[in-house]
């Protein structure tokens, strides 16, 4: 797998761009109260549907709320949902995947069969069905997205562990009497985490996209809490009247997803996975 010099510099650029984008967004989200020019829920009846201007750099919505502030606060919601949802799916995926890969046998068939079953469900249907029963809230959305997206990670971990566990250093660990737990946590997992990290980065992008779609349908984050998806709801009503309400929140989602995808692709090239 020889890499050309050109590809070598290219991949670093990709990774750097991604890290810069996400770093900036993270900073925006954390510093939201200090940066945003207005309160995100501040209703101002004197400036309804104002196009971008000096007072409101990205314009206002039909309640006179400042779009820039709402998008900055929306970054908090979107990023935290993405990260926590993926955290949940990582936990489930890593635990089930390592049990399946390490112990094999019945545990392996049960876990992998469950993953196959979960993979059959159109995730969006399943999430909407659960939201129909439970009330849509930020916590529920994180948990549901996490519960429906662990399968890829479990499969990855399992296949990594399957190929690692025949290696000599694992036999050595067994020979000196290391416990199963120690072998998995200290010897197998650290070596298997690379591709998982790439997958999880893509997963954050996917979760943010899912959340925004859910909120856009009115079944995700509920107003007045601003999320990029639910700001876009209003663009349906103001189509052709207020282009800025459509353009900017979507652009925020787009750039975020792009940033995470850059990181994932950059890491993949850096570590030379050809998957």
């Amino acid at each position, binding site marked *: 797998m020889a890499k050309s010099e050109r590809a070598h510099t290219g991949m670093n650029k990709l990774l750097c761009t991604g890290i810069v984008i996400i770093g900036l967004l993270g900073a925006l989200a954390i510093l939201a109260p200090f940066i945003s020019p207005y309160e995100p829920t501040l209703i101002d009846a004197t400036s309804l549907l104002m196009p971008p201007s000096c007072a409101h750099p990205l314009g206002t919505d039909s309640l006179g709320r400042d779009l820039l502030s709402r998008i900055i606060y929306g970054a908090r919601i979107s990023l935290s949902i993405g990260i926590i949802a993926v955290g949940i799916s990582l936990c489930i995926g890593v635990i089930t995947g390592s049990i399946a890969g390490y112990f094999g046998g019945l545990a392996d068939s049960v876990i992998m069969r469950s993953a196959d079953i979960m993979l059959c469900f159109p995730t969006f*249907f*399943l999430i909407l069905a659960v939201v129909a*029963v439970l009330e849509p809230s930020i916590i529920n959305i994180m948990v549901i997205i996490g519960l429906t997206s662990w399968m890829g990670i479990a499969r990855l971990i399992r296949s990594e562990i399957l190929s690692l566990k025949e290696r000599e250093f694992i036999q050595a660990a067994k020979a000196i009497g290391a416990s199963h737990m120690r072998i998995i946590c200290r010897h197998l997992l650290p070596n298997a985490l690379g591709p998982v990290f790439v997958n999880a980065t893509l997963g954050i992008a996917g979760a943010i996209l899912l959340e925004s779609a859910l909120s856009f349908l009115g079944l995700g984050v509920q107003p007045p809490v601003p999320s990029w998806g639910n700001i*876009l709801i209003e663009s349906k009503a103001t*189509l052709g009247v207020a282009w800025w309400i459509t353009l900017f929140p*979507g652009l925020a989602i787009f750039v975020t997803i*792009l940033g995470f995808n850059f990181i994932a692709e950059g890491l993949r090239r850096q570590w030379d996975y050809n998957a």
Partner: protein
Amino acid sequence: MLNYIARRLISSIPVLLGITVISFAVIHLVPGKPTSIESALNPKVSLQVRERLEKLYGLNKPIHVQYLEWTRRLLKFDFGRSFSDGRPVIEKIAERLPLTVTINALSMFFILVIAIPLGVRSAQASGSWFDTITTFFVFLFFAAPTFWVALLLMQFVCIKLGALPISGITSLDFEYFTFPQKIADIARHLILPVGVSCITGLAAVSRYMRTSMREALQQPYIYTARAKGLPERVVLYKHAFRNAVLPIITILGLSIPGLIGGSVIFESLFALPGIGRLFYEAVMMRDYPLIMAEVVLGALLTMAGNLIADISYAYVDPRIRYGKK
């Protein structure tokens, strides 16, 4: 081949069972009963009425009995009646299904026709400006939230330019059209929805095709083919392409749940009467029989899709058919 099909069918039985268990559990194990939400909206519903409702839908029986009864009816494709208008669920789904299938089949067609040549071309010219530009667009398409692109297109193409109808499947004066006009009208209404639903698939398939083609081009048999002096065209299309295109079959099978799920978004955006919009309406109205039926059908369709993908893969690739597994 028959042997392989038999094995594959048997291995999907537990998956089938699992699908029914999860669909059932999603609605029934979460706290709160379907009837309690229904009645909570209407304070006039008395205890007796609630009990009657519970009896009507069998909700007063133990959970495992309910599950067994539900699966028994499932075998007969009897999903019960919709809460909202009392019509059989299966009827409501059947009248909405053709549109969703048409849109997804069309977008699948365009994805394959456009993305496969793109992927092959950029793998073959790896590192060229063509490859760089396609990779750039793949990134953009992959990251673009489809509903946002749809909103932007609606804004510019439909409202600013007035070039295409914004929603629905037919124009208001549809019934007065002649047959060719009707076809043209439906086609005009479908351009945007089909186009938008292609976006992610285009990026994904051309990406996979590129990776797969690049891998194929590094195989020893390509060196052999080149070494014996075959024209580049034959090496590319007869030796590399045929092997590289196979994994796409699996990708297509795996993309079915995404397509079905995605139809919820763009069907409700473009006001198209397909099963995605039906599902959205069912969720908004807490129409549980309809929700359950669509979740099960969606999963079954995906399972069937994967089954067909695997079997056709085995059909075209003997290595799978005669493999050890």
